């Protein structure tokens, strides 16, 4: 149905009472979708504003500074001030840039991420689009971000932009693999690609622990791999090479200013919310309360609480770790995360195969065995990666 036919139908329905019309209108799929879109965009934009302030405050505290505290009491008006600043700034497009692509890149960055946000279940009834292959859709649409980064870098006609774009492409493609592999375990164990069903599968509590996937060894390992890869996917520190302010100015965003820069910035945060939301859905039980007696609290509350916790974790990590070097980044992805994610499969299979064990303490036994496999792989791979190729002092033939 197109909007036109909606309008025609509404006009034709003039005989009905005004209220009935309103009800018709309110339940029309177009209107419902529009409202859902507006709510998702508005809520995320508001959350984005709050998080930028909290991030700056938190980073400040981590560095023993008070953080922004000038705009309004405790700096709570800082996001508004930032927004006004961004909007009123001059929007400069380089003369030799590819004008159209340069203009489109921020939009191409933001649009798919908002689409990805639409498939996440925020509460028992709160899911904008319930797709059968929600996970697949999420990743398929999420990869458009790579295209946008390259569009921005290439069209700017600037070496820093291009370098940033190259880094972005290399990094995002490398980390896409561990990201998807770590989610595949969940899909395998749940037997569904629908995000709604994955959440539903984590509802039952056992042993006083919630039935979230993170409380299984494969879930724990998967979650950690997912979190690391998600940080890299959303260009968060310590994987912020594509921006790398201290090396390549602003990466693919170097030639952007004003509102377009703000859109990039927003897309980056939306991306972080989206992958965090996926992580919550896959591993942290989605909107489920941690304990059965807390079920009366609405699901959206638990979702937001978990999201804030995850985002805060990202901020904490950003305040702690220095940026990786490009070769370290690649090694980390291909030589560490990838094999670990593959091994996690074996753990999941073992966990599944031993589900029938009945003797007392079977659960603990399974847990320990599976955890041992993952932890052993973690240690071994980590040791192998950290081993130095070259021992002893380096010899310079000419310099010394």
């Amino acid at each position, binding site marked *: 149905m197109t909007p036109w036919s909606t309008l025609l139908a509404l006009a034709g329905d003039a005989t009905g009472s005004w209220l009935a019309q309103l009800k018709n209108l309110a339940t029309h799929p177009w209107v419902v979708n529009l409202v859902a879109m507006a709510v998702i965009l508005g809520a995320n934009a508001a959350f984005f504003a709050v998080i930028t302030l909290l991030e700056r405050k938190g980073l400040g505290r*981590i*560095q023993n*500074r008070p953080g922004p505290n000038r705009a309004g009491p405790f700096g709570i008006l800082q996001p508004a001030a930032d927004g006004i600043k961004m909007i009123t700034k001059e929007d400069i497009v380089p003369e030799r840039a590819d004008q159209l692509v340069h203009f489109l890149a921020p939009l191409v960055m933001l649009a798919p991420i908002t689409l990805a946000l639409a498939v996440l279940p925020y509460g028992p009834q709160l899911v904008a689009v319930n797709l059968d292959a929600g996970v697949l859709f999420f990743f398929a649409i999420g990869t458009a971000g790579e295209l946008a980064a390259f569009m921005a870098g290439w069209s700017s006609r600037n070496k820093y932009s291009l370098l940033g774009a190259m880094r972005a492409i290399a990094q995002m493609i490398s980390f896409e693999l561990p990201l998807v592999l770590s989610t595949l375990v969940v899909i395998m164990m749940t037997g569904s690609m629908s995000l709604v069903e994955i959440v539903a599968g984590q509802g039952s509590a056992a042993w006083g622990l919630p039935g979230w996937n993170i409380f299984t060894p494969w879930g724990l390992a998967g979650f950690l791999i997912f979190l690391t890869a998600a940080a890299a996917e959303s260009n968060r520190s310590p994987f912020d090479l594509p921006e790398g302010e201290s090396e390549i100015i602003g990466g693919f965003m170097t030639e952007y200013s004003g509102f377009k820069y703000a859109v990039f910035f927003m897309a980056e945060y939306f991306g972080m919310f989206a992958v965090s939301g996926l992580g919550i859905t896959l591993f942290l039980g989605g909107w489920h309360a941690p304990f059965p007696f807390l079920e009366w609290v609405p699901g959206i509350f638990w979702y937001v609480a978990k999201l804030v916790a995850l985002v805060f974790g990202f901020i904490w990590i950003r*305040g*702690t*770790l220095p940026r990786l070097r490009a070769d370290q980044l690649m090694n980390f992805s291909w030589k560490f995360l990838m094999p670990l994610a593959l091994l996690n499969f074996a753990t999941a299979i073992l966990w599944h195969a031993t589900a029938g064990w009945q003797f007392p303490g079977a659960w603990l036994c399974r847990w320990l065995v599976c955890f041992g496999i993952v932890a052993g792989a973690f240690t071994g791979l980590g040791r192998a990666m*950290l081993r130095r190729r070259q021992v002893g002092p380096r010899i310079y033939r000419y310099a010394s």
Partner: protein
Amino acid sequence: MPGFGIIKGLKETARNFFGSYHDPGRFVTIQYPEEKREHHENYRSFPFLVYDGDPVKGLRCVSCKICEKECPPQCIYIVPEQDGSGKLLKFPRIFDIDVSVCMGCQICVEVCPFDSIKMDQEFEVSTADRFGGLILNRSKLAKSNEYYHQIRPAEATAVDAQLAAERERQQAKAAAAKSPAPAAAATREKKP
């Protein structure tokens, strides 16, 4: 085990995060306009003119223009006062320093034979008027000797002592010139 370094780092940053809330001593920054850092006595920003007593008549400057000539970026402009007959007086009518050009080198202070120009410690000189607002004229430059004592106690005391000694010497000389034969003074004057 690899990865534990990260946990150590996270612990450290968490300690900073919570510590900065209950222990303000951890703060490495100061809230600038409200609190200011104490600066060293030798800290200097731009020059000012010292006066004793009256802000206009008490200026020590005799308008000798040495500083004007020596100033490397040439940012001092002096016009001496004249009396009715056009004779130059030992007093500046105009004394301007363009602080947008001044580089704070303190050379004017070094060369002034009368200890009349000294370096200030005032650094908040920003202004919305970048031409007129950054040219300090005589009345803006004039600051009392008490102020000088306040910002640089040691140096100002030394300068005061030196000036007092000089004055005493002058007085002694004047007294000596008055009482004995004026011939001694006359012979000295003849020397080239």
